[in-house]
């Protein structure tokens, strides 16, 4: 018999009698399923969160912050500096020739959570060019707020989480504010966890004369550098200019690294535990089959096919475990809305955990490594089994 046919015969026989060793095999499957479920779940938080944060950024826009500010919440731009920035070169213009640029202001308001606790929510004041500036923001119900009136539009995450439907009233800064619209962004975004209103109205309610940041639409590919140079050469300004997509991605980078690190660390620890479990049950499987293996060797099968058959068993069980684990993570957590803070300065951002095919591949890869390592040593023992002694030994 050729080596290939030998391997096929032994592997096939071994896999067919797997059900007879169901309880020991189950240990490997469930152990690995646990590892993969935890790994994929934690990583799906990282993926969902960074997607949501990065979703607010576009390569076609630039963000202007006061010099040195690391976040929008740290930045302040005096009202007097706004015209200088607005009229700088590199900013796209609308059909009427006005620059597509917004000075934006942030505040936090408290909303009631179901259990009587209150939660912080970000309120963002935006300018009149908002529709041209952020075309991805679309109203799904109601209408746009009117400048000068205490009107708000609410991101769809907040509508669901805090019951802020059309016509609900919020009371802050000695005013009664009414929700006139619900908006959604085309891709998951940080904005979905925010409330938008007119910037001027917000500033006058809070009696403030400074904005947090400016967001502008860039005219073309080279416009960012043009804008940077122009603003740097203005002695009255001390600002930093970022491409919005780059800035947004950088915002979640640290948290993303931390979450991945946590996922790989916990997953790694659990993988070590599962590996020891797999080694134990495969050693047991090999010793339970020692008579069978010795018989195969005695009738002419080589050591190679026996080794391959043990490895194949281990891999099949590992992959089955990985699929079960990934399926558990997907069923339990895909789309599960959780919330996390980007920094202590900002209210938490709602994001949906996202189990992507890439994460499933990572899970299966880990499972295969555990299966290979866990199967290798028992397989070698199976291959080296002394035939005569194994045939003589009874139990």
């Amino acid at each position, binding site marked *: 018999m050729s080596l290939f046919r030998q391997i096929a015969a032994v592997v096939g026989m071994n896999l067919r009698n797997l059900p007879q060793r169901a*309880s*020991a095999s*189950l*240990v490997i499957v*469930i*152990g690995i399923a*646990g*590892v993969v*479920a*935890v790994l994929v779940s*934690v990583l799906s938080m990282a993926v969902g969160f960074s997607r949501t944060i990065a979703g607010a950024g576009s390569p076609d826009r630039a963000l202007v912050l*006061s*010099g*040195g*500010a*690391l976040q929008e*919440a*740290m930045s*302040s731009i*005096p009202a007097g500096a706004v015209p200088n920035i607005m009229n700088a070169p590199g900013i796209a213009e609308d059909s009427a020739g006005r620059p597509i640029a917004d000075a934006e202001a*942030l*505040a*936090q*308001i*408290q909303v009631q959570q179901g259990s009587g*606790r209150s*939660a*912080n929510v970000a309120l963002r004041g935006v300018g009149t060019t908002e529709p041209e500036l952020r075309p991805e923001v679309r109203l799904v119900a109601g209408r746009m707020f009117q400048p000068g009136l205490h009107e708000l539009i609410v991101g769809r995450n907040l509508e669901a989480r805090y019951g802020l439907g059309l016509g609900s009233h919020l009371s*802050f*800064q*000695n005013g009664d504010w009414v929700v006139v619209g619900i908006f959604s962004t085309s891709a998951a975004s940080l904005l979905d966890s925010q409330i938008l209103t007119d910037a001027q109205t917000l500033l006058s*309610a*809070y*009696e*403030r004369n*400074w904005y947090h940041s400016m967001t502008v639409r860039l005219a073309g590919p080279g416009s960012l550098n043009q804008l940077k140079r122009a603003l740097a050469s203005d002695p009255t300004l*001390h600002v930093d200019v970022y491409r919005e997509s780059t800035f947004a991605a950088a915002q979640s980078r640290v948290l993303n690294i931390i979450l991945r690190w946590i996922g790989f660390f*916990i997953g790694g*620890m*659990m993988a*070590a*535990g*599962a590996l*020891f*479990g797999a*080694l*134990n*049950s495969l*050693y*047991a499987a090999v010793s339970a089959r020692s008579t069978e293996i010795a018989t195969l060797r005695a009738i002419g099968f080589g050591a190679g096919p026996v080794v391959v058959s043990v490895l194949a068993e281990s891999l099949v069980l590992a992959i089955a475990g990985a699929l079960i684990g990934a399926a558990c993570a997907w069923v339990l957590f895909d789309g599960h809305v*959780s*919330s*996390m*803070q980007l920094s*202590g*300065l900002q*209210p*938490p951002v709602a994001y949906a955990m996202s189990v992507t095919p890439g994460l499933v591949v990572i899970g299966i890869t880990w499972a295969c490594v555990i299966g290979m390592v866990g199967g290798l040593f028992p397989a070698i023992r199976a291959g080296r089994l002394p035939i005569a002694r194994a045939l003589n030994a*009874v*139990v």
Partner: protein
Amino acid sequence: MKYFRLVWTGLWRKKVRTIFTLLSIIVAFVLFGMLQGIDTAFKQMVDQGRLNVLTVMNPAGLPLPLAYLPQIEAVHGVTGATYRSLFIGDYQSLNNIVIVLPVGANYLALNSNLFSVPPGELAAFLRTRTGALITPALALRLHWKAGDHVPIHALNAMKKDGSPDWTFDIVGTFDMPGYPSRDESLLLMNYPYYDTARATDAGTVQMYQVDIADAAQAAAISNAIDNLFANSPNRTRTETEKASAQGQLAQIGDLDFFVEAIVGAAFATLLLLTGSTLMQSYRERIHEFAVMKTLGFTDAGVAALVLSESGVLGVGAAALGLLAAHLLLPAVGRLAAGQIPGLHLPWIVFAIGIGIAVLLALASALPAAWRVRQLSIIDALAVR
């Protein structure tokens, strides 16, 4: 005790298997210890929040006018009030982040149980306009000592002259006795220096701290303070320090849920692994148990032997795992750059861990112990 040798020998009957089982239990308890340790550290921040101290902040996340101070002090039941702001800066590079707290003149006096400053250094701080007190950790890391003149590059506090660089004269260090392993990069500065030099928001503070005589009056006094400013553009939100810490913790995310889910998954997997290993070991030793029963061991005796083997293995491994977690946690604290103060393995987590180990060990050995107990000598010896 005379059976300990028997248990011990039974345990090491198959060395490789026992070592692998031991390692997988150790791993689960390292995870348990570290996750619970981090969880407890967060909860301790809330526990350390005082009930007779109120914090007054602007619910909009904006500053409050300094002019509120006399009105707050005049509220009935208030024994003292102080204030602080906060900005973040770095020394030479972003690797050396320093958290700067501009504090009111009586801030350290009202918080003498949190910050301990030698009287001479406190006097020097209050005397020196640009004086600064730092944590010993910061002094050690940046090699600063009293008398040094140091520049801090502010990330969110511009000065009137357009520069973000603040210079300080170090006058001493302060300890934070309530926080055993706090590795924080704090710098305290005098409020007047901050307020007169900064470009924006002059005359405002980030928060007030209010001491009250009777913790039972906290809600009434909080309402009284909030009512004072209810019709101003800068409203206040007053709550106890504990409630404020709780609110901040709630904002971080659903931490508890994930810690419990992960620990649960790890333990369920472990129970299964250990249980199946013990069953294997039992099956291999059917003969031995039958022989022992023949020699006069009672049914309960052999069952107890099986349970003890599992108990010794489980508790021993759990203790080793928790010890490893205890040694690893400070390293995690260093990685988190002092973001999680007081990171250590509390005794209660250690005790709970051992308790869980006992339960796990008994639960996973129970099927095997039951089978051994029910074992009939004749049948067992007949099996070949």
